[in-house]
């Protein structure tokens, strides 16, 4: 497999600043997989890319093991863009070497590729229900629902309700006076195909989705999915033709409309009735730098206290399965450790802002021997916000908060 093709490797090494690596090893020291004993070394991967050693790059599934969580990149003193390097390497080496052994039997990749090919009329809006105000084709704001409906249908064993988070998001948008476009013709954003090296499949989806949102005339796009947001904000850049919509995570939307929603910034209470802790999704946090919006929302919710885990914000451990490219006992260990950390805060709930966090942590909680140790209720930030507003419906009642 070695030999020709070292020129693209060299270009990737250059573009990811791998040439700046001074072999300090901080990346491997901080890598969540390496920390739980998994044999994975970002440092060695960077050196192999520099040396043009294709065989070393793919040996032992090395290319697929990376969580692409970006923690090593956060620590790297030479700003090597390791996560970008891994993504591009997967694209480069997909054809000749690395057909990923996809978790869940490749189901999710197949679903994405079928969506990419089109030709069917999706029945994906069943979650909306009669009480939400939405538009179908045109409007100023587009609510990007992502694959929530698919996840609820597929991961039935995890008691998921990702579409409840979608409903909460739209309900909050309604309360802020926005009836967003929710389209039946939306397709997977392609995040996972891109991160599994299927650039062709990704591009098909990207072009369709960019056209769809452009045709809606929306100037703002709001989503509940951290991965969709990353994909829209960063990976769709080459595909925008006309005006690029403003792209917001639902937590940013809620924070921006706090006043209209009757939320007082900082209006939450230390020693509040309920303690919750927050899981920073890797895409929302390290990839996009959105740390404050979810916290602002949580801090504004009455009778609720946010307690941080030891590893939070830029240091947060991810859910260990973000790209459907690999899952093994080390992923499980990372999840179990993270859930223990969440439990150790004394919180009764783990709040997050990405469907994937919920899927993977709920999977870990299925362990029959650990269930009692690591079990914790999980909710999306928007669900909590809507619930709090339901309980404290008028802005006036917030004055009584301690």
């Amino acid at each position, binding site marked *: 497999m070695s030999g020709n093709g070292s020129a693209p490797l060299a270009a990737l090494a250059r573009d990811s600043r791998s040439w700046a690596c001074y072999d300090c090893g901080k990346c491997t020291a901080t890598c969540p997989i390496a920390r739980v004993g998994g044999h994975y070394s970002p440092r060695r991967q960077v050196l192999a890319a520099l040396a043009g050693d294709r065989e070393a790059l793919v040996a032992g599934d090395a290319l697929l093991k990376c969580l692409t969580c970006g923690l090593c990149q956060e620590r790297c003193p030479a700003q090597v863009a390791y996560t970008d390097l891994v993504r591009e390497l997967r694209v480069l080496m997909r054809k000749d070497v690395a057909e990923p052994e996809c978790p869940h039997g490749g189901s999710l990749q197949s679903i994405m590729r079928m969506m990419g090919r089109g030709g069917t009329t999706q029945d994906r809006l069943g979650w909306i229900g009669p009480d939400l105000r939405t538009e179908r084709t045109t409007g100023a704001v587009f609510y990007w629902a992502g694959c929530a409906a698919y996840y609820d249908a597929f991961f*039935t064993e995890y008691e998921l309700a990702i579409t409840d988070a979608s409903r909460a998001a739209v309900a909050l948008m309604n309360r802020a006076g926005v009836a967003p476009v929710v389209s039946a013709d939306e397709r997977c954003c392609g995040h996972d195909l891109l991160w599994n090296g299927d650039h062709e499949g990704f591009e098909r989806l990207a072009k369709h989705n960019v056209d769809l949102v452009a045709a809606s005339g929306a100037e703002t796009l709001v989503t509940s999915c951290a991965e969709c947001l990353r994909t829209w904000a960063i990976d769709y850049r080459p595909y925008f033709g006309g005006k690029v919509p403003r792209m917001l995570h639902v937590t940013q939307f809620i924070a921006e409309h706090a006043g209209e929603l009757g939320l007082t910034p900082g209006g939450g209470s230390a020693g509040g009735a309920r303690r919750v802790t927050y899981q920073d999704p890797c895409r929302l946090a390290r990839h996009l730098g959105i740390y404050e919006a979810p916290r602002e929302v949580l801090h504004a919710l009455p009778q609720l206290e946010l307690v941080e885990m030891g590893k939070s914000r830029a240091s947060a451990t991810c859910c260990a399965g973000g790209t459907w490219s690999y899952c093994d006992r080390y992923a499980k260990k990372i999840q179990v450790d993270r859930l223990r950390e969440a439990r150790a805060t004394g919180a009764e709930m783990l709040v997050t802002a990405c469907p994937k966090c919920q899927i993977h942590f709920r999977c870990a909680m299925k362990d029959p021997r650990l269930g009692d140790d690591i079990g914790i209720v999980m909710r999306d930030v928007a669900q909590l916000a809507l619930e709090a507003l339901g309980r404290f419906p008028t802005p006036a009642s917030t004055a009584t908060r301690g």
Partner: protein
Amino acid sequence: MTPPSAAFNPHIVVFACNWCSYAGADTAGVSRIAHQPHFRMIRVMCSGRIQPGFVFRAFENGADGVLVSGCHLGDCHYVSGNERAVEQFAKMKAVLKILGMEEERLRLEWISAAEGVRFAKVIDEFTDRVRALGPGPFAGTRAATEAVLAGTGSGS
């Protein structure tokens, strides 16, 4: 039975368990029961093995219909594998519904080793049903799939 020269002959993938349905197909064969031939059969050890990814991939690569088959409930060679097949099948159905695929392109049937007649009947009915629906939504990918298969060899 529609002859193979019909205007449209669907491409159907049949997943069959080793102990019942595959043997049922065998019974149909040794009994010389005629049935339509427009399917490719994939033998698995148990219908519980047939995970959604198998079926999704079949459709993605251009199948017009997929039949999942196994031992009758209560008769599973591995006691409860076909109960798992039922759970898996429900997921496939739910996902394909959201995706907008016609429901009848995917079917679950229990066929025992003795039921050669029933095997032939199920195949004929399903083939006619899928023929009536026409090519599947991703049938256009089949040429590419077949080229890949031809390029890498059949393994035989």
